[in-house]
């Protein structure tokens, strides 16, 4: 499929589905080929060749998200070995900016989609709940850039955050109730204060930048 998108109807279908313009798709395709050295699919190792990504503390997790079948809308769980260009576009479409003419409803679903992507990034075991351990793992990676923070404090922060989420989401908890972890609904609540739709976006359309980005 990777090579097929040059055909206009194919392209149009892609554009339709992912919301990108044909220009952007072309752009992304060029980058796609650059990353996988002109093969049809892209594998995890290909991401290792991106030099700037090296310093990203949660790099593994982000790359992982590209292969997550939930994000690819293919299966409720599991990890893909390799993704083709269409999948690549699907992932990228999570990072599209909002458009002027979006109505409330579409905005809401747009927002939910973006959040779902993030949620999947935390929820590593596909059970729909971010457990404390999962949260801690993310935090661990996130803070790996700071060697001075001890594991203990990390744990404390994770627990504090979990508690906070619990207090925000379960107002009416009884003393013996158990807070299992953050469900997607809770996740939405946690993110309520942040305008994700105005933040989670990347500019896709700059030609010259790609030229000197190896």
């Amino acid at each position, binding site marked *: 499929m990777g090579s097929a998108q040059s055909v206009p109807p194919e392209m149009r279908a892609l554009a339709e589905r992912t919301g990108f313009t044909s220009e952007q798709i072309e752009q992304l395709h060029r980058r796609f080929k650059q990353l996988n050295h002109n093969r049809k699919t892209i594998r995890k190792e290909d991401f290792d060749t991106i030099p700037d990504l090296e310093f990203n503390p949660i790099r593994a997790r982000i790359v992982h998200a590209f292969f997550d079948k939930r994000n690819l809308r293919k299966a409720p769980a599991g990890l893909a070995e390799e993704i083709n260009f269409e999948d690549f576009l699907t992932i990228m479409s999570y990072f599209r900016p909002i458009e002027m003419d979006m109505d409330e409803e579409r905005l809401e679903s747009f927002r939910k989609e973006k959040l779902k992507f993030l949620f999947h990034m935390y929820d590593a075991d596909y059970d729909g709940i971010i457990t404390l351990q999962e949260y801690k793992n993310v935090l661990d990676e996130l803070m790996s850039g700071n060697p001075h923070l001890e594991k203990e404090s990390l744990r404390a*922060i994770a627990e504090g955050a979990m508690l906070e989420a619990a207090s925000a989401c379960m107002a009416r908890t009884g003393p013996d109730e158990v807070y299992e972890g953050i469900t997607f609904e809770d996740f939405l609540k946690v993110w309520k204060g942040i305008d994700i739709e105005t933040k989670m976006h990347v500019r896709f359309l700059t030609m010259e930048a790609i030229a000197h980005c190896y």
Partner: protein
Amino acid sequence: MRSLDAGCSVPVPHLADAHILPSLPVFHLSRKVTSVVPESCLLILLGLGLGGIVLAVAKKPKYQLEPNMFFLFLLPPIVLDSGYFMPSRLFFDNIGAILTYAVVGTLWNSFTTGTALWGLHQAGLMADPGVEAGLMDFLLFGSLISAVDPVAVLAVFEEVHVNETLFIIVFGESLLNDAVTVVLYKVFNSFVELGPAHIHATDYVKGVASFFLVSLGGTAVGLLFAFLLALITRFTKRVRIIEPLFVFLLAYVAYLAAEMVSLSAILAVTFCGICCKKYVEANISQKSRTTVKYTMKTLASSSETIIFMFLGMSAVDTSKWAWDTALVLGTLFFILLFRAVGVVLQTYVLNRFRLIPLDRIDQVVMSYGGLRGAVAFALVILLDEAKVKAKDYFVATTIVVVFFTVIVQGLTIKPLVTWLKVKRSDHHKPTLNEELHEHAFDHILAAVEDIVGHHGYHYWRDKWEQFDKKYLSQLLMRKSAYKLRDEIWDVYYKLNIRDAISFVDQGGHVLSAAKLALPSMPSRTSMSESSVTNLLRESGSGACLDLQVIDTVRSRRDKEDAAMHHVLRGSLYKPRRRYKASYSRHFISPDKQERQDKEIFRQNMKRRLETFKSTKHNVCSSKSKARLKEKGRKKKNISLPSDAPNGRTHRNVPWQEAAPVLVTVSSDEEESDSSETEREDDEGIVFVARATDEVLQGKTTPGSLDVCPSPCIIPPSPTLAEKELPWKGDQADLAVYVSSETTKIVPVDMQKAWNQSISSLESIASPPGIETGAQHRRFARPMLEKQPQSASQATPEQVSRFQFPSHISKSSRSKSDSSPEGAEQQELQPLMGTEEQGRGLPPAEHRRLAFSRASHI
């Protein structure tokens, strides 16, 4: 540009301020009024009223808003405040739009307004023959009238609460357009002075060049001073008290320096504030942070008040007015029109680049929010009447424009925002989760940009953060601060403080999160309590809040604690107290000491107490169980409001460490008759003084509380020594104690004052009953009375004292070997000193180190 030479006019207006300032709170009081009318409007109206009164009484207008006073004294605090507290992330996220509006927008406004007014004049619509002005004059006027004013914008928009993007764009524009205004004003002013005939093409080029010079130069000055400031605060660990001073001083010096070399001073201070904040906040102590915050806010709002008041009062001076209806109406019309047109045009262009476009409603608010203010007024007053013939007309017009924008637009913008359903910002405190997610989010976006291969905003921000982390922060932050520097950690820490404060406010019962029952959360079954702080405490990290720590400790090990307390109280009560005091003190201020130190301290402390307890337990087994229980209860209740009558209220303060030595000591004396437990968590600053105090107190206790055989303190031989000592009253007594180690902290004159306050309090507030007697005894030192007591209790104390023979022998103080107080103090201090610093040094030396360090805090 503005000249710097006239400072002499300042005192007079400031005299008036004293009367004016109290009116500000009045507005705050009546919420109904201020919810409708912005404060700035009220202040202007009040100024008008006051001006009228002054005019009626003095027969001539007084108290003008002097440009020099304005630019030198009133404006800098406001700009510094807005720069320092600018949400920098938001600011830099929108820097493109802000710069566009600030530069292009202001240029557009100046030229169009000036030209249109000139056209109006050419068309002969300005009837008044006094309006003698050419194109240059009008352009000059246009330049000063077109700039959106930061003070006015801030005053109005802070109350409106539009969404943060909108706010930062309007406000950022108003701050940054200063450079443009200043340059345009200066250029046109010189053009007017030269006369249109003598202007060459090179002058225009110079004008353009000077714009870049002024704005970039101002920014550079600001950055330079921000760097200096951050660097200086890195080395103020021992002089915490002057940290806030440095912040204000250097920011002001940045302003003056920029002003002196004719660069944009507002830009300098703004960028100084924005850039230094991160490092300064990390370096300075919590106390200094609070000081800086409140002082800055106070100064800024005072300046704002004064500015608006004086705007009102200046308007009364009709001698400067020269009214031309066409000019006034024309100006009003044009500034509104061109602002709107400019905003729409620029937004049209900007939206092609912005990922999140500014919609129509935003544009309306932006054009309507273009308030003019005191900057325009001060600039128009600065005009030279000899050169600019129509100055009086311009002054009148400016006043009308300022009044119109501040009052009419200020009044209507709130209904407008509501009516247009502009997205409001919900001001909520950052939560840990949000911070966490946003943090992760930034990395994700940067990563996706990397993958897409586009070096966009996130990419560069990521790069900048890496650079900052690697080099800048290392250079500008204290090691201890740098190590702990992490946004997530910061938020966590702040949340804990918030929790603690609310905890204390609610009488020590409820934590924001404590109500939640999470103990059953599967992965943290080990947790017995569910407060965030408790988690932190368990994790052993240093950023814990003392109060809660103490409290959780108590609730956790109530029984054990009570027992220990009892034991300690019986045999060696003070160390426990002291331990508490220092315990809380060191937790309070994580930046005072490195965390490792604290870690050692705490572990040490625990171990010591453990051994301490075990040894002591054998010694004093004679205690009554009832007493034990009672004590335990007391300890438990310690933070409950019921203790407040005992002068306990100030206990909530200790973790702020705010009390000066004298105050605390005296308050301590006040409560000396109340339960002993109160003492144990007093703040650290005083604790040297307290040491002596506690020792003194120790003597009284046997008299007052004979149930407990404790205070011991007085073995037989010491009494002999005591007799020999030169007791000339409290003075001498205290001098002995204080001089032994507090001289570094408490100067001699203060010691006297201290003693006096003690004795006066003693006489005033001496409570009835046995305790009174005991108390007096303590200061008047009737030796005879004391002897029997001490003799009776000698044995236990002696035994307990021998637990620490090494400390006694190490002591070098004059009294220590013979007097009981000395002995006791020694027992206390090793606990303090060594633990605090680690184990390296001998206790005696160490103690001193520790104390002198504490005194610097």
